[in-house]
């Protein structure tokens, strides 16, 4: 019985960590972990903050009770993973899978690949193009933002290979966007550098952080909500810092 307890806690924590690393919302992770643990005992609780997960099983018998936690380091958004993990948890709840089969499936989900880098680069360009047009830029501005967006994508994919602070990544992103927008304008491509910069910033801007902060707040997970809102401010300060460095240097030089 006691081995069983360790196994199920390990499985729930692993599931929670993987969901948190793929950017699932707090309520969904807590609910999934509790669903897994409820197969073992009815009084199970979990607590999720943006950098770690806690799981606990409570029994009248003290040896059958336990609380564990695990911290995560790497966070990104991966919707396909959330879908697969949700499926595994549902099957486990319906006793279609036992713990060892579920753990095997988790390993499989870990090995899933992302979209090919060329498609991701194209997406960076398309996001910049689309938002420049939506914010009222001319078609020529859109073309310039497409180029700037692809250059930003190259920088981001390159920086993604190293483990550096997101602040540094965002500052470099802001510098790359502003530098190339001004460079293209210097060679006569594009009409208004402000519109090009605002549109090209959209792949970096913390849209996801704001949405998930709003959702967590709405569902009452105020710890995650405030932490994610603060993260959004932190990201945007980083980006703007990069933009303003280049604009300031330009006004000093010219």
């Amino acid at each position: 019985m006691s081995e069983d307890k360790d196994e199920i806690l390990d499985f729930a924590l692993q599931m929670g960590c993987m969901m948190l690393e793929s950017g699932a919302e707090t309520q969904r992770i807590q609910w999934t972990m509790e669903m897994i643990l409820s197969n073992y005992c009815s009084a199970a609780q979990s607590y999720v903050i943006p950098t770690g997960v806690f799981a606990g099983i409570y029994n009248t018998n003290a040896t059958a009770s336990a609380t564990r936690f695990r911290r995560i380091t790497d966070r990104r958004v991966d919707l396909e993973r959330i879908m697969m993990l949700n499926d595994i948890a549902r099957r486990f709840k319906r006793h279609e899978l036992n713990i060892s089969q579920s753990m095997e499936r988790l390993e499989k989900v870990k090995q899933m690949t992302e979209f090919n880098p060329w498609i991701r680069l194209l997406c960076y360009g398309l996001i910049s193009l689309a938002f420049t047009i939506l914010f009222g830029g001319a078609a020529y501005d859109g073309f310039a933002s497409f180029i700037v967006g692809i250059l930003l994508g190259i920088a981001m994919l390159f920086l993604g290979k190293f483990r550096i602070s997101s602040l540094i990544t965002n500052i470099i992103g802001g510098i790359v966007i502003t530098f190339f927008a001004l460079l293209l304008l210097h060679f006569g491509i594009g009409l208004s550098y402000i519109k090009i910069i605002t549109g090209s910033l959209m792949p970096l801007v913390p849209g996801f952080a704001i949405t998930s902060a709003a959702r967590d707040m709405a569902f009452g997970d105020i710890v995650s909500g405030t932490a994610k809102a603060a993260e959004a401010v932190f990201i945007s300060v980083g980006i703007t810092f990069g933009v303003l460095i280049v604009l300031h240097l330009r006004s000093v030089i010219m």
Partner: protein
Amino acid sequence: MSPLFILKDFIFSAVSAGAFAILFNIPRKEIVHTSVSGAVGWLIYIAFFKILQMETIGVFVGAVSVAFISRVLSYKRLIPSTIYLTPALIPLVPGTEMYYIADGLLRNDMYYTFLHTVRAIKFAGAIALAILILYSVPDRYFNMFRKKNP
């Protein structure tokens, strides 16, 4: 609001939502659905903004429609609704406002910072309220959309 303007906004908001969906590594079959629902949300927002000059209400109604489409799709295709909701909300989210806030802070222009902070909080609050309302509707009202024989 000429037809050409509507078509242009529809195409570019769909492209932005779809491209974000690919960056978020969405399952391939769902790209079109999430792009269209993002475009519907944006068009509702822009209609409220351009015709009635009501921005916050526009964000709210846009987010309500996106959340509704996401929930219906999640019942129809038996997939968690986050998959549709996250990329489709991106065009509505006040991402540029966050940039303007940081811009005002770093340039020490406090009036500008305050103006955009209030806007960002209003928009984010409208989105949170929209999600809360749509997700408080009990399951039984959505069961009619459920796929037969899963």
